[in-house]
């Protein structure tokens, strides 16, 4: 069965600093991978998606992610965090073929590191 692991429940980062959110997947087949962001009291918004091809994918608002088959990972990165990035981030994998529901990781909350 497929699964997604986000090992960090919370990540603290200062505005302007770089950000990396980790995602490991387990899937027997060709994965289609997604990163979503959820702001308080809102639904999920797509940041970026990986379809088999170039391992580095660009998303909205300066986010990018890199797919690694050897590490079964799909980590999300941003070079410089903005205050509007404080939110919960979800990594997800799609079953291929007939069934298409997403399997989500448990989410990583990005919170500000206050001086």
């Amino acid at each position, binding site marked *: 069965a497929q699964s997604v692991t986000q090992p960090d429940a919370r990540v603290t980062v200062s505005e302007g600093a770089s950000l990396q959110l980790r995602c490991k997947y387990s899937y027997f087949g060709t994965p*289609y991978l997604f990163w979503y962001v959820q702001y308080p009291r809102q639904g999920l918004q797509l940041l970026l998606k990986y379809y088999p091809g170039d391992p580095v994918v660009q998303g909205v608002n300066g986010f990018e992610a890199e797919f690694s088959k050897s590490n079964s990972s799909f980590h999300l990165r941003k070079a410089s965090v903005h205050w509007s990035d404080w939110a919960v981030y979800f990594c997800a994998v799609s*079953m291929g073929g007939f*069934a298409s529901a*997403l399997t989500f990781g448990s989410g990583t909350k990005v919170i500000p590191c206050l001086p």
Partner: protein
Amino acid sequence: ETAVFQTPNYHVTQVGNEVSFNCKQTLGHDTMYWYKQDSKKLLKIMFSYNNKQLIVNETVPRRFSPQSSDKAHLNLRIKSVEPEDSAVYLCASSQGLGGRYAEQFFGPGTRLTVL
């Protein structure tokens, strides 16, 4: 720009009552979904519908039932709600089934509180 609409935004009810949530998508997609997000932000698929046919039905309690009049609408009914049903219910849609059609668009959610 919202393309998946959910009503109501919030609903408070008592144990044993029946509730119904509505979802409509204007994207022309063929597949719709209901997810449950619990208090720890964990997301679990409940149902998915493709061309009005139920194609994924996780082991949710029988008191939950999806209802669809056409491919643009997927409602969720809960007969006799229980306290553990308190959660955010997220509706989503995708162009099709799996793979490249797996990208899902989410509504803002309906927050249910059962007293």
